[in-house]
C-alpha cells in the first residue's frame, strides 16, 4: 500500500487525469489517499481495444467511456489491455460469459460510462459466476460500481505495483463498501453521492432502463456540472448506491472474475457504448464532449510537475520515468518508437531489478512492471502494440504456475541452454521450498548455459553442469527435462536452440519425460519436418575459436582452406514424438493440440 501511495506522489494524478477529474476537485482528495488501485488505465483511450480473449470478452463493454467517467470517481480501472489479461490469468478466473451482462451494459452504456466500468467489471464477474438477467445485474453492477467508484477514486494513476494494484482494485471493488467507511474516501464518496443523487433523481426504477435513461439524463446533467464525465459517474454511483445491499454478495462475485478480463471486456463494450454515446451526445455536446471519454490533453501541465519529481521517484525506475516524460513531452511518437522505447526501458528496469528480501520474484517483478505501465499510461495512453507487448511480459506467471505443479521434491531436472521461462520456473519452485537438483546442459558455441548456471547457483540451487556430449552419462539420474522453445509449429515440432532435439531424443531413449515451456504467442501455423529447410546460420568463426582453450587452434585460417566449411546452426526442429507436454499460458497441452491453440486463440490477437 505504501508503495502505491508513494507512486501516487510521483505524478500528481490530478494532472493526468485530464478531462475526467479536472472539473471536480472533490474526487481528487478522495481518490488519492486510497490505495491506488487503478493505474492510468483509466486514461486509456477507447481506441485501444485489447484483443478480446474469449467471446465473453466481447461482452465486456465500454471500457472507455466508463473509464472516463470513472475517472472522477477514482480510476481504479484496471489498465487497459496490458494488465488485464495477466490479471485475469493471475486470478485464474473463469471466462466472463455474460451476454446478458453485455446487453445490460449496452443498454446502460451511459450510466456505465459513468460507473459502468466498475459495473461492467462487476457484471463480468457476475457473468461468469452467475449468468443472471441483465436487470439483476444492472442493479448489482451499480451497487458494485459504487464501491468501485470509490476505490477508483483512491486508485489514481500510476499506482506502483500495478499488478498489486489490480488485485487491490478487485479487492477494493469487492470490499469497497467497508473501505468506504474506513478511509477518507468516504467523505469524497459522500460528496459524489450527493451530487449524483441530485442528478439522478429521476433515474430510479428499472435499472436497465434506468441505465440508459440515466445515461441520457446523465449527459445533460453532466454538461452543466462538469465538463467531463463527473455527473454521469455520479449518477451511476447514486443508482449504484441504491443497490448497496447487493454489494456484499457482489464482492464475492467480483473476486471470482478478475478485473483484467473485465478490462478487456470493458474496452470492447466501451467501444460500443462509445458509439452509442457519440450518437446520443452529439445533440447535446460539442466536439469536446465527443471525446469526453478520452483523457484530455493538458499540455504542459504535468511536465514540470513530473520533471520536478524526477529525483524523488523511488518506486519508478529512472529509465521508465525518462521514457514516460518523453511520451509526455511528445519526444517519442509513433507506435513502434513508443513500443520500443517502452520495452527498452523495461529492459533496463528489469536488469536493475533485484528481488527484495521478503518478496517473490514473480509477484514482485510483475507488480513493479504493472506500476511502470500505469505510469506510462498516465503519461500517455498506451498503444495497442505496447499493450500487447506488456501482456507478453505477464504471461510468464501463468506458465510458471502450471509448471511448478510438475516439480516434486527429490526431482532431478535437466535443462538445456538458457531459457528465461525455465529459469523462472526453477527459481520460483526453489523459492517455494521444493527440494530438487538441476542439471544444466550446455553446448558450443554459445555456451548460454553458463550464464544460467551462474544465476541458479547464486540463488542457492544445487546444480550440475555438463556439455551436451555427456547427456548419455547423466541422463540415467534425471527425472524430468524442462526445455524452452523459440517457437512451436503446428505439427507439434518444437523449433528451438540447436541441440534441443538431441536432448529430447536422449531423454526419450532413457524414458524421461520432456516438458516444453513456451508462451502461447510463440505458436505458429507453419509446419516443418526437419531442421534444414528453414534455419538460421550463425557466425562460423565462433566454431573455429574455442574460448579459454588456446591449445585448440587447428582451425586458425580456416577460410584459406578451400575445401573446408564451418557450419554454425542456430536452431533445430525437435519432432513431436519426443515431447511429453507443452506448458503454455493456456495450460498444459500435448503437442498434438498446438494447431487447436493456433486456430482458436491466435486469431483474436490483432498483432498476428
Amino acid at each position, binding site marked *: 500500500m505504501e508503495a502505491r501511495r508513494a507512486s501516487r506522489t510521483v505524478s500528481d494524478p490530478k494532472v493526468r487525469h485530464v478531462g475526467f477529474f479536472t472539473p471536480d476537485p472533490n474526487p481528487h482528495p478522495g481518490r488519492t489517499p486510497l490505495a491506488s488501485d487503478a493505474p492510468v488505465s483509466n486514461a486509456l483511450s477507447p481506441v485501444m481495444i485489447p484483443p478480446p480473449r474469449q467471446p465473453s470478452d466481447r461482452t465486456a463493454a465500454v471500457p472507455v467511456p466508463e473509464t472516463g467517467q470513472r475517472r472522477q470517481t477514482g480510476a481504479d480501472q484496471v489498465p487497459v489491455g496490458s494488465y488485464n489479461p495477466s490479471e485475469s490469468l493471475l486470478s485464474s478466473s473463469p471466462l466472463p460469459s455474460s451476454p446478458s451482462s453485455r446487453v445490460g451494459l449496452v443498454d446502460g452504456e451511459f450510466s456505465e460510462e459513468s460507473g459502468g466500468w466498475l459495473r461492467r467489471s462487476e457484471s463480468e464477474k457476475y457473468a461468469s459466476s452467475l449468468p443472471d438477467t441483465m436487470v439483476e445485474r444492472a442493479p448489482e453492477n451499480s451497487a458494485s460500481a459504487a464501491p468501485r467508484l470509490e476505490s477508483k477514486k483512491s486508485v489514481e494513476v500510476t499506482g506502483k505495483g500495478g499488478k498489486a494494484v489490480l488485485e487491490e482494485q478487485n479487492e477494493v471493488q469487492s470490499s469497497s463498501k467497508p473501505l468506504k467507511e474506513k478511509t477518507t474516501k468516504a467523505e469524497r464518496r459522500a460528496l459524489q453521492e450527493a451530487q449524483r443523487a441530485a442528478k439522478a433523481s429521476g433515474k430510479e426504477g428499472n435499472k436497465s432502463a434506468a441505465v440508459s435513461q440515466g445515461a441520457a439524463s446523465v449527459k445533460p446533467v453532466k454538461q452543466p456540472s462538469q465538463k467531463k464525465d463527473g455527473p454521469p459517474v455520479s449518477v451511476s454511483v447514486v443508482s449504484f448506491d441504491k443497490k448497496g445491499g447487493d454489494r456484499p454478495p457482489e464482492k464475492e462475485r467480483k473476486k471470482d472474475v478478475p478485473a483484467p478480463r473485465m478490462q478487456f471486456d470493458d474496452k470492447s463494450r466501451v467501444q460500443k457504448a462509445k458509439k452509442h454515446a457519440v450518437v446520443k451526445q452529439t445533440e447535446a455536446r460539442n466536439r469536446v464532449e465527443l471525446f469526453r471519454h478520452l483523457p484530455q490533453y493538458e499540455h504542459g501541465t504535468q511536465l514540470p510537475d513530473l520533471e520536478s519529481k524526477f529525483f524523488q521517484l523511488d518506486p519508478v525506475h529512472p529509465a521508465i520515468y525518462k521514457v514516460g516524460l518523453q511520451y509526455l513531452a511528445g519526444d517519442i511518437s509513433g507506435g513502434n518508437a513508443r513500443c520500443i522505447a517502452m520495452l527498452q526501458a523495461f529492459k533496463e528496469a528489469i536488469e536493475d531489478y533485484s528481488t527484495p528480501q521478503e518478496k517473490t520474484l514473480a509477484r514482485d517483478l510483475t507488480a513493479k512492471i504493472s506500476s511502470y505501465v500505469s505510469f506510462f499510461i498516465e503519461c500517455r495512453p498506451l498503444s495497442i502494440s505496447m499493450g500487447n507487448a506488456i501482456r507478453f511480459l505477464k504471461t510468464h506467471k501463468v506458465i510458471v504456475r502450471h509448471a511448478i505443479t510438475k516439480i516434486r521434491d527429490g526431482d532431478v531436472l535437466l535443462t538445456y541452454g538458457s531459457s528465461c521461462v525455465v529459469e523462472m520456473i526453477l527459481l520460483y519452485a526453489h523459492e517455494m521450498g521444493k527440494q530438487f537438483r538441476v542439471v544444466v546442459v*550446455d553446448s*558450443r558455441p554459445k555456451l548460454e548455459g*553458463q550464464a544460467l548456471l551462474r544465476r541458479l547457483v547464486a540463488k542457492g540451487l544445487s546444480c550440475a553442469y555438463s556439455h551436451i556430449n555427456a547427456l548419455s552419462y547423466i541422463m540415467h539420474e534425471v527425472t524430468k527435462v524442462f526445455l524452452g522453445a523459440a517457437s512451436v509449429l503446428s505439427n507439434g515440432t518444437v523449433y528451438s536452440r540447436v541441440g534441443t532435439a538431441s536432448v529430447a531424443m536422449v531423454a526419450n*531413449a532413457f524414458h524421461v519425460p520432456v516438458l516444453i515451456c513456451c508462451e502461447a504467442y510463440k505458436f505458429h501455423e507453419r509446419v516443418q519436418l526437419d531442421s534444414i529447410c528453414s534455419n538460421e546460420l550463425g557466425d562460423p568463426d565462433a566454431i573455429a575459436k574455442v574460448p579459454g582453450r588456446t591449445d*585448440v587452434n587447428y582451425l586458425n585460417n580456416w577460410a584459406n582452406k578451400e575445401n573446408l566449411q564451418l557450419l554454425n546452426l542456430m536452431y533445430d526442429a525437435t519432432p513431436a514424438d519426443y515431447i511429453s507436454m507443452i506448458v503454455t499460458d493456456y495450460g498444459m497441452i500435448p503437442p498434438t493440440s498446438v494447431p487447436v491453440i493456433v486456430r482458436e486463440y491466435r486469431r483474436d490477437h490483432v498483432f498476428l
Partner: protein
Amino acid sequence: MVDVQGLVNELVSKLRRRKVEGSSATARLTAELLRSVISQSKLPTTNQPAALIDAVRDVGEKLIAANPIELAVGNIVRRVLHIIREEDHSNARDAVEGFRLSVGGDNDYIVEQDHLNLSAAAQSSLCRPSLHALLERSPDSETTYFTATSEDDSEEKSKSLDQNAKSLKFRRKVISAVNDLIEDINTCHLMIAELAVKHIHHNKVILTFGRSRTVKEFLCAAKEKKRSFGVFVAEGAPKYQGHLLAKELAARGLQTTVITDSAVFAMISRVNMVIVGVHAVMANGGVIGPVGLNMVALAARKHAVPFVVVTGTHKLCPLYPNNPGVPLNEMRSPSEVLSFEQFSDCMDYRIGTGAPQLLVVNPAFDYVPPELVSLFITDIGGYCPSYMYRLIADYYSSDDVVIQQKPAS
C-alpha cells in the same frame, strides 16, 4: 641384456601418468614390451609354456592396473597369452604325432585311437567347444591330453637335445607370432582402408565424430579411388579433435564441414552414413567411444542411417560391459568444460547437507549398445555386432579372460 623389469616399470609409469594414450599406441608398446619379456625370461627346461604364461601374466597384471580404462593393454596381454597357449597346443600336437610314430605298429590301433583322441583334445582345447566336440570328447581323451603333456615332459627328459631344440623353437615361434601381432597393430588401418571403396560411393555424405586415424585413412582411401563425397565432422568437445581431422581431410581434398556436436541431430537427416572410430569393442558387440557417441548413434538409429564402426582387432576386448572389472568411463578435468576463472566463486558454495553445490561432469567415454551399431569393419573384414563373440574366440582363450592379482602361491 636388457633390463626387462626396468622396461616394465617404465611403461607402467607412462600408462599411469597418461603419458601415452590411445588404443594403437598403448597396444603397440604393450606388445613390444611383452616380446622383450618373452625373449628375456629364463625358462625352465620343463613346462616352458606354463612358465611363459606366468611371466606374461605377471607383467600384464601390472600394466592393466596402471590404466584400467585402456582396454587395449589388456587385449594385447590376453592375445599374447593366447599365442603362447596356441603354440603350446600345436607343439603338443606335433609331440603326439612324433610319439605315435615312435611307438610303432604293435599298438597301432590304440595309438591311432590315442592320436585321434589327442588331436581331438588338442583341437577342442584350442577351439570354442562346439556341441559336437563336447560329445566326442571322452574322459580318456582328456587324460590322454594330460598324459601327452607329461609325455611331452618325459620325452624332453629322454630326448634332451630334442627338448632343447623344441624349447628354442617354442620361444621363437611365440616371438614371431608376437611380431605378427605388432605388425597387425601398425597396419590395421591400411587393411581397413582397402575395404573403403566398397562402402563409399559417389555423392555420399558421411558423418564422423571426433578424430580417428582409422577413419581418416578410410576416407582418404576412398578419395584416392576417385570417389567424390562430402564429410561432416562433429567437433567432439571437449577434446575438439574434430577440428584437426577436418583440417587434415580438407588438406587431402575432401569437402569437409565442421559442425558442433549439438547440430548432429539437425544434420543427420542429410547424411547417408555415419563412420566412426572407437576406443574399444566389447564382447557383446557394444562399443566404447568418445563421449557423445551414444547421442550420434541414437540420432542415426532414429533417421535409419547406418552406423559403421571401423576398428582394428587389437581393440576387440573379451570382456563384457557389465563386468565390474571394466570401467566403462573415466572422468576428466572439469576445467575442460567450465573455466575455473569464471566460476571460482561458485565452486565454494555448499548446500545445507554439505554436498557441493556445483558439480561439473566431464566423462571421457560413452558406451554405445550393440543394437545401435550396424556394422564393424575390421582388418579381417566386415562383421555385424552379433558376430563379435566369434572373433573373440579366435583371438583369446577363456582362461585368460580374468587376469587378476594372484597371491603368491
